[in-house]
């Protein structure tokens, strides 16, 4: 067993009994008693459909959720190299230091989250200076060029404005920004949904390669289960706020236990496999889905 493999079994983040409630007129429990352990350097897929609470869960992990959402119970522990951090007990100042340093996020539609009026260089510099105020100009330049190189963007692009970059390029810059401070965890919320398939494939390849190089853990959130099956080590399936199944990717594909997981798997026709019971049988057409029943 190599060191990397041994480290892969050490937890880096544990969620215990996490519940998130939206305080609306009829309070909605968006995440119900979630238990989850993220190991070092692992890619954990979080699959589910719209409204299942996967984004709420991701935001709650580093307390980015906005009221009226609130964490109603539970515990989130980050296991750093220098001891455990109870995220829920952090004061605001500590929390700000914790975010991005230890745990960063790539948001849904993040490629539109870059500030359109400043250059990539300025945005990377702002992020660096906010957390490492003493960094020298030279160090900042070197670090910025280094991260861009790592995500496969030419460092000459530092002087570009976001609109001068393609969608895939902007998404890479966002990933560069998320890894700027060498966090141990990166949470990615639908990072490739708005991209073309080929570009999406390039970005995924980049993420997996970076993980292998830098050994950070990734929580990858998407509705695209086949994509998760390919890139993640383990997959958690969420349904109406609950994690209904958490299993190694290949086991989940071969031997899913929860009916909802099987249903999700069955929703994706296989590209190279048999047609199976898929199209043109007229079967399964009227089966109501959880989402439709709720509506």
């Amino acid at each position: 067993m190599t060191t990397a493999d041994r480290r892969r079994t050490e937890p880096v983040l544990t969620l215990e009994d996490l519940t998130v409630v939206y305080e609306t007129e009829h309070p909605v429990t968006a995440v119900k008693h979630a238990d989850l352990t993220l190991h070092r350097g692992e890619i954990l897929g979080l699959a589910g459909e719209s409204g299942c609470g996967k984004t709420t869960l991701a935001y709650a992990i580093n307390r980015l959720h906005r009221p009226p959402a609130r964490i109603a119970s539970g515990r989130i522990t980050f296991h750093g190299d220098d001891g455990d951090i109870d995220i829920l007990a952090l004061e605001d100042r500590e929390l700000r230091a914790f975010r991005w340093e230890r745990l960063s996020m790539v948001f849904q539609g993040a490629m539109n989250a870059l500030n359109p009026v400043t250059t990539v260089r300025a945005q990377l510099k702002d992020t660096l200076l906010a957390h490492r105020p003493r960094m020298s100009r030279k160090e900042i330049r070197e670090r910025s060029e280094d991260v861009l190189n790592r995500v496969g963007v030419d460092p000459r692009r530092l002087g570009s404005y976001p609109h001068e970059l393609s969608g895939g390029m902007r998404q890479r810059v966002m990933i560069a920004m998320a890894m700027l401070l060498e966090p141990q965890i990166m949470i990615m919320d639908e990072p490739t949904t708005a991209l073309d398939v080929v570009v999406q494939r390039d970005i995924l390849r980049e993420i997996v390669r970076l993980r292998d190089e830098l050994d950070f853990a990734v929580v990858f959130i998407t509705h695209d289960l086949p994509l998760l099956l390919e890139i993640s080590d383990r997959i958690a399936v969420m349904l109406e706020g609950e994690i209904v199944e958490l299993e190694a990717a290949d086991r989940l594909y071969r031997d899913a236990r929860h009916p909802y997981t099987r249903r999700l798997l069955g929703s994706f026709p296989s590209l190279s496999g048999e047609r199976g019971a898929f199209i043109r049988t007229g079967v399964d057409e009227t089966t109501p889905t959880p989402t439709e029943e709720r509506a």
Partner: protein
Amino acid sequence: MTSVKITDLVKDYTLRAGLTRTRLRAVDHVSLELIPGRTVALVGESGSGKSTIAKILTRMERPTSGTVDVRLDDGTAVAGARYRREVQMVFQDPFASLNPFHSIEHHIARPLRLHRRTSTNRETHERVIEMLERVNLTPAEAIATRRPHELSGGQRQRVAIARALAPGAQVLIADEPVSMLDVSIRLGVLNLLGRLQREDQLAVLYITHDLATARHFSDEIVVLYRGRVVERGPSDAVILDPHHDYTRLLALAAPDPERPGRVTSEAGVDREAIDNSRCYDHFAGAWREAGVSAAEARIDA
């Protein structure tokens, strides 16, 4: 029953930036045929020209050159208001394709009245209910009075399908009809389209970027790259035995749990190196030049 024959379709857009004008060729000599009861999938990325073809087919854009020939069974050409009745479209975004202001009934009743499929209010209402039941929206009476925001994405898309079929359309253009829906209801909507197609012998153009559904849902696949057809043929042949570099790239990019671990093993292909001057035709089993008119096309056996 109605069929569509597109011949040598070209669409240029003029881009103005200050005083300079550049011409962008969105669609370059595309020819295809839609036959009753058969589905043709138009596959490609954004900017490949597939939406432009949809717009030309629905007469929202005029082609720069080329013809769209729509004919009934008896050989009469369809034109004018009749064209609108025969060729209908299902849009990508079910949240934007229904007017939030109007009830579901309004959306289906309008085309019925417009094309004089029904004459009295009572008849229209009965027909609306019938249409809703056909797309499995029950209880139809209750759903007819609702407004779009009260329905889920899948239900809205069913309404959009009912609306497209209401005038009695025989040719259906489905522009990414399921890409914005939740995954677990996508198959339901596609299966519904499949059933309606069988029942009405519809000619369907299925526009998508999803190769897996394109393969299973359609009879023929046409791959578009930068406005040109680069590969065409029976679905299984195109997907399982792609000849053109671009089709291969697309097929590799699509997630496929049957072949895990490909993410890191395969290097990225240089897209700039892909040329779209040649097209592989599985029907002819040969390469031919792409982007020239069908009459002049040379076939390399």
